[in-house]
């Protein structure tokens, strides 16, 4: 069974700009897939469709055995852990502990069950000691890891990460790779950082102008210089 499957997704913004023009792909359970593409390709819009923040004009999103619809919205938001591009949008509660508890508390968890979910999620991203800290006093790398913990606490079956390495220093990026590799959950990673994609994901998609234009093994895809160039991508140096 696919962790997430998208079929022929179409979406047009209220101002008439088409963002998704027939997107189809699937991510199997436990798989890590990179989603590459130029600015404005529709990657973030696509991510927002995977847990129903935006609803498609046409097409189907399936998460596990559930098809996205009004009646499955709550369960799908539990299963799809969406981490936003800017941690300041992701972390809105007064303390890290409360922020991580927000999701599971909305699922109705309380008491020790809730505490275990919070401490477990923080531990899995190496941030157990940050629990009582204030989000805006964290470093960039800490914010990223705590953002990840806020969705891990809900025990999702797939993580959708929107540019997780933007604004991170090399050490923070390295720590994030370590954390993501240690998680046994399917991941769809939107990124412009091609080496990050190569290191983390065995498979990569390129999205451009609202459609998936390539779907291959990451190493093959990054070796195709013409393909990368056509879609405004390039490796930082050539060998």
């Amino acid at each position: 069974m696919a962790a997430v499957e998208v079929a022929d997704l179409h979406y047009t913004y209220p101002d008439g700009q088409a963002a998704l023009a027939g997107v189809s792909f699937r991510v199997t359970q436990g798989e890590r897939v990179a989603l590459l593409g130029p600015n404005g390709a529709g990657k973030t819009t696509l991510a927002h469709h995977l847990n129903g923040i935006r609803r498609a004009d046409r097409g189907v999103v399936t998460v596990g055995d559930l098809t996205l619809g009004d009646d499955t919205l709550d369960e799908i938001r539990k299963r799809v852990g969406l981490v936003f591009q800017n941690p300041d949008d992701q972390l809105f509660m007064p303390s890290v502990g409360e922020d991580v508890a927000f999701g599971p508390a909305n699922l109705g968890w309380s008491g020790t069950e809730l505490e275990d979910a919070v401490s477990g999620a923080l531990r899995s991203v190496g941030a157990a000691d940050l629990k009582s800290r204030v989000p805006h006093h964290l470093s960039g790398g800490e914010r990223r890891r705590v953002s990840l913990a806020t969705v891990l606490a809900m025990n999702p079956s797939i993580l959708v990460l929107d540019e997780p390495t933007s604004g991170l220093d090399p050490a923070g990026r390295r720590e994030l790779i370590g954390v993501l590799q240690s998680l046994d959950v399917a991941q769809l990673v939107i990124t412009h950082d091609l080496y990050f994609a190569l290191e983390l994901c065995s498979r990569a998609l390129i999205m451009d102008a609202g459609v998936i234009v390539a779907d291959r093994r990451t190493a093959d895809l990054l070796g195709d210089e013409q393909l990368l160039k056509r879609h405004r991508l390039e490796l930082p140096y050539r060998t």
Partner: protein
Amino acid sequence: MGAGHAHTLYVHEHSPVHRLPPETKVLSAFLFVAVVAVTLREAIWAFGIYTAMEAALVLLSRVPVRFVLSRLIAIAPFVVFALFLPFIGVGKDIDVLGISLSSEGVWAMWNVLAKATLGATASILLAATTEIPEIVKGFGRLRVPAVITGIASFMIRYLEVIAGELSRMRTAMTARGYDPRWLFQARPIAASAGTLFVRSYERGERVYDAMLSRGYSGVMPALDTRSATRWEWLGSLAFPLLAAAVALVAVTTS
């Protein structure tokens, strides 16, 4: 963005006052200020006792005296206003060093000075021993509606983010030679206020999306289940109760 690890009103200490649950401190501070406000101004001795009580609290909470005094500067405008009262009061009936003053005005000055100082000190001590999110939590436990505490905590969370945005915008203006001195140069500032509003509005939408993504359904989850014990309430409320007793004696003996 990562700078400034404690907010400026809080003093990090491990005193009994710091440890008291926030709701007891919020209520006690409010009651104390209310008692001070209704105390007869003629009972000068009562204000002496209040001052002694606050001094004892400063010692107990290990908040530096200098910290309290420097924060008291906030009431300077009231002090300046009060100092005028003896000169502008009706009926110049007393003579001090050759200047005729109104005794009613002197009493009014004393009233404003004493009560403003005591009240401000109480709030300074509350803020110095309780972190701001805790104060909001205290209001929540005192049954202040969740909408109000929710708005307050979002405001606190995003105030620094928005202030950071504003300061980056100002830096960007300065970097391009903007150096306002005159009123007619104020237009870019007004424009930046508009930009800031739109950005904050958009951020609000993104934060709401992030909340929806984690199962938000219109009600903030109840994460806060701890409440103060009877002893903690008693220890905290002893402070305004003692003040109330003093005020009562002042009324009955006047």
